[in-house]
């Protein structure tokens, strides 16, 4: 038996997500443990699609208040002003400050929405048993996984702006209710990427190869 062109699952083997050791589960036992590092093993991450859907849907719901509610409230001698993420981007836009404004726009608005859409596309394509564009879909997944953390930028910007500008009664900045929902979107999309099993992208191809001989 040559293992070339075989997936580990088709060969009845499980590879450890932690240490990479390939091992054979005991007879009629789908969930074993890695003999080297003691990690719980499975052929695929258990309930990967359901858990990823749950996180993606929760992130999509939180995305709305994250963009509608203010993330920063600025109190000055003349009055109080609340800014949403988008208003923050507009405020930052100036002849010299536009690159930073662009960073916030990309990290806070474009990346989170692109992540939700990309994960939704990956989930649907896997559920429909797609065998097309496997490499591109995997590349999309890697991008989502790699880029997700950078959405946290806005949380840090608002944290340190609010911590520093405490000059009552002259001017003070406080975090707004939108910040919680925005942080929730970032965390939920990161958890979604983590619970998605990229090997599912290839499984339809693997089984169609079996069917064709």
């Amino acid at each position, binding site marked *: 038996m040559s*293992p070339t*062109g*075989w*997936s*580990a*699952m088709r*060969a009845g*083997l499980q*590879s450890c997500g932690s*240490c*990479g*050791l*390939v*091992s*054979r*589960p*005991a007879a009629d036992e789908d*969930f*074993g*443990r*890695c*003999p*080297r*590092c*003691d990690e*719980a093993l499975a052929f695929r991450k258990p309930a990967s699609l359901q858990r990823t859907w749950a996180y993606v849907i929760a992130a999509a719901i939180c995305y709305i208040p994250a963009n509608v509610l203010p993330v920063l409230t600025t109190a000055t001698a003349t009055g109080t002003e609340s800014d949403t993420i988008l208003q923050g981007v507009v405020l*930052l836009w100036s002849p010299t400050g536009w690159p*930073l404004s662009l960073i916030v726009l990309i990290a806070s608005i474009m990346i989170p929405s692109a992540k939700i859409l990309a994960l939704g596309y990956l989930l649907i394509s896997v559920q429909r048993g797609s065998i097309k564009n*496997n*490499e591109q879909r995997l590349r999309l997944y*890697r991008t989502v996984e790699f880029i997700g*953390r*950078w959405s*946290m*930028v806005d*949380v*840090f*910007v608002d*944290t*340190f*702006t*609010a*911590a*520093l*500008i405490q*000059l009552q009664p*002259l*001017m003070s900045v*406080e*975090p707004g209710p939108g*910040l*919680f929902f925005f*942080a929730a979107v970032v965390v939920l999309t*990161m958890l979604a990427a*983590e619970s998605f099993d*990229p*090997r599912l992208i*290839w*499984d339809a191809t*693997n089984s169609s190869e079996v069917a064709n001989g």
Partner: protein
Amino acid sequence: MYSYVYNQPLDDPSIIACPHCDLLQRLPELAPGAAARCARCNEELWCRREDSLNRTLALSTAAALLYLVANSVPMLGLTIVGREASTTVIGGAAHLWAEGRETVAALVLVTAVVAPALQIAFMLAITLGARRERSPRWTGVLLRYYRTIRTWSMIEVMMLGVLVAIIKIADYATVIPGVALFMLGTLVFLLAAIQVSFDPREVWNRIEWAEAGAQPHAVDDTSAAEASS
């Protein structure tokens, strides 16, 4: 759902499955600095690092010292019409907490303070443990959790956030960069250097197995690594 039955390892330890597409393949012997990629999806399967344990230990020690100082001195200050204010990283999280944003404060604390500390501490312990003649079991336990901790350690993202905040604040006040700001900037590069000097496969090869009976007796990889160094 998970059982406590150990799986049976394969006779040939060079057979691995790609973590991204599950293709079974044989991992070739690599020279230090060389990398092997998946034949189907091009995922990097292994990059053998030169003198991995010693270099990672040195970098982690430097990172630990920088981290301790960076979190004990002010990071950012400002002056406006004769008034001054300054904050540390922890101070930023503490302010959020005081304002009633406890969840976000906890998230900032975890991603900017707790996770980086654990990341550096784990790496120190892993490299120290793996350098021993017989790597103790806890080295593997720490390495198992290391991946998760790394995901949530976001010093580099925080630095970008701080830079944006500086530009924002510069419109109203004079910003005074603190010592910690430069230390955190250096720490970003140190953590990246740890990432490219560390070779988890080398540690896994040296480790005492969870199921001691299944461990191959001849530990060829360690002797091979020692012979080549």
